[in-house]
């Protein structure tokens, strides 16, 4: 069997027993990529893999990892899948890349994404859409669609993504892999090209829950270069991989089980709840009252921050420059040609929300409703240890299907968005398939800095199901 199909733990075992060499993994990955990549198009850039020169003994030593194209890797193309960053090679590593390199991991390829992480389908990429390995006519989800698709199609062993409103969890659910959005402040954002600074987090996409915990062990922790990273001790997450959830209280938010949920998704989730109950969990109905406002709050806060974060892409220091005689024309032409449609839409919406006369009506009001949403979770976690929801109301949709209707696209993020607004961690794991054999994802949420709870429940569920063992036939 191709080594590309194995998990981190399986490869580790073979490497430690000297059954394989590190270059064997790269060779198998390359041949899998040659076969599969033309159909999936999960990568934005595939440059020569950079082996770490450090010889530390670590679970990640010599394990290749794919990196979302909005995370800076020194000397390698980092473009956010945008024309405006054409040719950009950062002269520095993101903190997570530094951590991976010093753990001995091999940085292998930059994955495709919605431009600047603006989207839920990876269709908004300058390099064209990525395809869902389970159905090539469908989207892989987004914005970390390339990371999810490559892990699902075995063109990557594991990957990093970023999550601002569901960008790790939703594609993980669409592609049948495990994706975690850590607590805000758990993983350094230094070197992550910002979309919305108060919402962004980097997280792992993996084939199994165990692999996810292993990556989290490496990338988590305080970073003096990121004022918003939190200086609290990082536990060993692999210790949370316990097949036991007896007595754990799982909350089911009633506001999430209303109209609009796909019937296959609903069935899979209800069956999962039953299973967890059988495994000893206590199931409780809870309420997250302000759920209906989450999408609105998100699209104001996220676009406002984005409009400012993306102002720096102006053709002066790096990336695309459209030649014009005057400065203002140069700015306008560079940003007109450099940004795709969705990016322009969001920058303009965010600029509008912050502009004179609208700041209080939109931005400030949104920040206040954000407080209410955050409080909803604080109250809920007084009654339960974690919360269970579908990751998405429906499975992967057809490429092109929702492009003409941005609002519908935005609304489909309803289950993932609140998590970012509250800053709490959440994981998506495979929990079934639709009649058409599209993966369904289940989302677990916990209190801030309690990823251990997520790993424990997710691991128990995984050990008692076989969804994660199924592979797409490409």
């Amino acid at each position, binding site marked *: 069997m191709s080594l590309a199909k194995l998990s981190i733990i399986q490869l580790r075992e073979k490497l430690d027993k000297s059954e394989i060499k590190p270059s064997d993994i790269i060779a198998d990955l390359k041949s899998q990529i040659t076969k599969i990549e033309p159909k999936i198009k999960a990568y934005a850039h595939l440059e020569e893999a950079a082996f770490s020169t450090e010889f530390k003994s670590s679970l990640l030593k010599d394990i290749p990892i794919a990196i979302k194209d909005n995370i800076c890797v020194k000397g390698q193309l980092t473009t956010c899948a945008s024309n405006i960053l054409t040719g950009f090679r950062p002269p520095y590593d993101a903190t997570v890349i530094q951590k991976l390199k010093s753990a001995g991991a091999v940085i292998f390829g930059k994955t495709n994404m919605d431009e600047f992480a603006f989207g839920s389908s990876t269709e908004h990429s300058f390099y064209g859409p990525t395809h869902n390995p389970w159905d090539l006519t469908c989207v892989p989800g987004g914005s970390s669609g390339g990371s999810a698709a490559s892990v699902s199609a075995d063109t990557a062993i594991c990957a990093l993504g970023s999550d601002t409103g569901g960008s790790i969890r939703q594609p993980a659910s669409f592609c049948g892999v495990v994706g975690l959005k850590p607590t805000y402040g758990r993983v350094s954002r230094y070197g992550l090209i910002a979309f919305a600074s108060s919402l962004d987090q980097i997280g792992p996409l993996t084939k199994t829950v165990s692999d996810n915990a292993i990556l989290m062990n490496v990338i988590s922790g305080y970073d003096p270069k990121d004022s918003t990273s939190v200086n609290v001790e990082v536990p060993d997450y692999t210790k949370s991989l316990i097949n036991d959830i007896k007595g754990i209280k799982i909350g089911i938010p009633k506001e999430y089980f209303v109209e609009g949920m796909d019937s296959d998704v609903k069935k899979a989730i209800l069956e999962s709840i039953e299973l967890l109950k059988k495994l000893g969990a206590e199931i409780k109905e809870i309420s997250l009252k302000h759920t209906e406002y989450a999408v609105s709050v998100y699209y104001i806060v996220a676009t406002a921050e984005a409009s400012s974060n993306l102002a720096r892409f102006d053709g002066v220091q790096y990336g695309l420059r459209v030649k*014009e005689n005057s400065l203002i024309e140069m700015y306008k032409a560079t940003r007109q040609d450099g940004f795709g449609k969705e990016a*322009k839409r969001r920058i303009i919406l965010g600029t509008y929300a912050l502009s004179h006369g609208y700041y209080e009506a939109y931005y400030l*009001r949104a920040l*206040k409703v954000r407080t209410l949403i955050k409080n909803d979770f604080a109250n809920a976690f007084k009654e339960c240890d974690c919360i269970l929801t579908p990751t998405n109301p429906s499975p992967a949709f057809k490429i092109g299907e929702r492009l003409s209707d941005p609002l519908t696209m935005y609304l489909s993020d309803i289950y993932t968005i609140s998590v970012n607004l509250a*800053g709490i961690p959440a994981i998506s794991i495979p929990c079934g398939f639709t009649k058409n054999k599209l993966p369904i994802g289940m989302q677990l949420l916990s209190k801030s800095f309690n990823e251990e709870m997520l790993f424990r429940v997710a691991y128990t569920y995984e050990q008692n199901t076989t969804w994660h063992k199924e592979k797409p036939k490409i």
Partner: protein
Amino acid sequence: MAISKKDLIHVAYLCRIGLDEAELDSLTKELEKIIEYIDQLKKVDIKNTSPTSHVLPLKNVYREDKTIPSLDPKEVLQNAPFKKDNFFKVPKVIE
């Protein structure tokens, strides 16, 4: 609150994004729909609620006043679309 084409032209100028007529028209319509939707926030009671800029109660994060080596100018300018000597170069700025 509705957004007019005129508003959009102003906002596009603020964020320095050139738009052609077709883009202006479609964006006006799309944003109108989005803004109509987010106007739902107007019905939320926020009288006694303070805003959340940061989800975590972090405060007083500093670094000490110590210098660390800067980038090599080669690295500073390696991505520059236009440069002259060690300067970045732009079309003439008229005050």
